[in-house]
């Protein structure tokens, strides 16, 4: 055992010696941006659109970029530190779940700006992007209620996270604003990547006569698209990214966060030094969140689209507020 310990000490010393010699500061003046996602960037939703945002920053601002997929809270912190230590200018944690890590690590690396999407914490170099995702969700609810034949709809989430929860609430409020008696079923898959479970849950909801499903389950949600496509007689609504092309024939529309747009807004400010740490509210007005009806299907009546457009204009003008509290 003693031998083993001694071996470690020796290896350690040698490593430190070599490491100190070869380490470069890494700061050669380039603008460097890093992104942490909680899931794989091939999900065609939350994570994939964030990665597209990162690529947009690279292409538009000539930034040097880095991405890492992280699983646990411990990893959030560790990677925030690593990027800070490497002198990254902007580090984006994609989700409210990164906010505690940002609060802890931020003070240690004052030259790096930490931004989390969702969450509410700020600091000298910590900011949060707050998406008014419930605004377009409300519109989706109106659109959905107008096409529901059975008067039963469903919301299907990966796990119950704050933005998902409030978006579902807004969807329900939107639906009830036009059809107060409509029934809305709620289900969660329990994870974000079991597409087969997503499909089965969607089928179960359809067996309960739900004919519009608003899904927000990333990769697992793809299964819900497949369920509706296969079974027909129902509409599905995409979330986070524009998912209208996933299953164009059965998709009513998507509730979109234009993450590339949002990321670019923030990154540009950071690059030119004008960024002030705050909760950046990105809403309908800033055109970062949108209800995007599927152009390949024409089921929404002009009356409905006009109604939504009217509310949207009022929302931008500040004369209309959603009939429920906004989530952070």
């Amino acid at each position, binding site marked *: 055992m003693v031998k083993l310990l001694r071996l470690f000490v020796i290896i350690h010393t040698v490593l430190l010696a070599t490491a100190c010699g070869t380490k470069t500061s890494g700061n050669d003046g380039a603008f460097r941006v890093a992104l942490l996602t909680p899931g794989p960037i091939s999900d065609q939703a939350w994570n994939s659109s964030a990665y597209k945002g990162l690529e947009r920053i690279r292409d538009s601002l000539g930034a040097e970029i880095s991405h890492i997929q992280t699983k646990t*809270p411990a*990893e959030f912190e560790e990677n925030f530190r690593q990027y800070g230590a490497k002198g990254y200018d902007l580090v984006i944690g994609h989700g409210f779940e990164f906010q505690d890590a940002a609060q802890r690590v931020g003070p240690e690396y004052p030259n790096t700006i930490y931004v989390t999407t969702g969450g509410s914490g700020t600091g000298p170099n910590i900011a949060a992007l707050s998406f008014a995702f419930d605004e377009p969700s409300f519109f989706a609810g109106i659109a959905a209620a107008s096409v529901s034949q059975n008067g039963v709809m469903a919301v299907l989430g990966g796990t119950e996270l704050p933005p998902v929860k409030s978006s579902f609430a807004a969807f329900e409020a939107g639906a009830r604003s036009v059809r107060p008696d409509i029934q809305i079923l709620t289900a969660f898959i329990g994870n974000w990547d079991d597409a087969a479970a997503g499909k089965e849950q969607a089928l179960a909801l359809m067996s309960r006569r739900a004919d519009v499903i608003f899904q927000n389950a990333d990769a697992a949600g793809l299964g819900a698209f497949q369920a509706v496509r296969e079974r027909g007689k129902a509409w599905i609504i995409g979330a986070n990214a524009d998912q209208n092309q996933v299953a164009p024939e059965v998709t009513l529309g998507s509730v979109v966060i234009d993450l590339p747009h949002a990321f670019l807004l923030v990154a540009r400010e950071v690059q030119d030094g004008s960024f002030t740490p705050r909760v950046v509210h990105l809403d309908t007005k800033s055109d970062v969140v949108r209800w995007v009806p599927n152009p390949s299907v024409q089921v929404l009546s002009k009356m409905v689209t006009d109604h939504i457009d009217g509310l949207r204009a009022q929302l931008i003008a500040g004369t209309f507020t959603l009939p429920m509290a906004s989530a952070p």
Partner: protein
Amino acid sequence: MDALAALWDGAFGSAFAIWSATLVRATPLLLLGLAVALAFRAGLLNIGAEGQLLMGAVGASAAALSLGTAPRAIVVLAMLAAGATGGALWSGIAAWLKRRFGVLEVISTIMLNFIAAALVSWLVRGPLQEPTRIYPQSSTFSASAHWPFLIPGQRLHLGFAIGVVLALVLWWWFERTAGGFRVRAVGAGARAAASAGGVDVASTVMRVFLVSGAIAGIAGAAEVGGVTWALYEGLSPGYGYTAIAVALLARLDPRWIIATSIFFGALEAGAAAMQRDAQVPAVVVQIVVALVVLGVLAVTALRDKQMAQRLAVDAE
């Protein structure tokens, strides 16, 4: 080549890499590896370290949250005790099912892993949720529940020291004490232990199951006390399963588990660096880990073969 350099740098390339990444990641693997090794040594296939870790984290979080700002020593000790209790309670269910109904622990512990994950998911949205009731997580623990760091300026925390001490104690216990010898005998030959040694096999196995769960629970306590300072869901990326490889690769020798847990910790820390610095996708990292494990397996297998030949039985 860049990727491999990044792997090395991320694991051992700097003081930070070693003390704040590699060893921090090695800590849960070390404790869970010990839990698994103890059980396997007694012939008990405890695949449930994952769930036991989660329940240990729940216990320790509950202790930390309810004790508030009591003196640090008291809070940390209470977290240790609560973590161990949480883990032991969870393994106790499998132990009880085994003893009372003869349910194989291989399957019951896997089921309990899934159940524990669901339970944590509910707890952080229910009884243990932070007071604003927005986020699915507990409040951040007060400072007195933060486990002390071992090295100033680095993230390595008390949990690692506990793991190393526990490894040495466990090794000593196996080698030098009657109790440890009994456990080894039960695992290597339960019938002989009962018949030749008069060992009470059933109760030995039950005790081992509880202690194994308790150690795994301590790993959970260390994770929330030393790293995250709050209870989250998704606390473990499958440490409990990796720990099985950690323990087996060390041939269930507690001393070697220190080494193999650091090895796996280094692989994961290095893998993260590969993603960050060389933009190698996360999944490639799994390939690297798998290949390294298979490589080590192949080498030891070949060595075993030679050993076996040298020791060729002189009987027919």
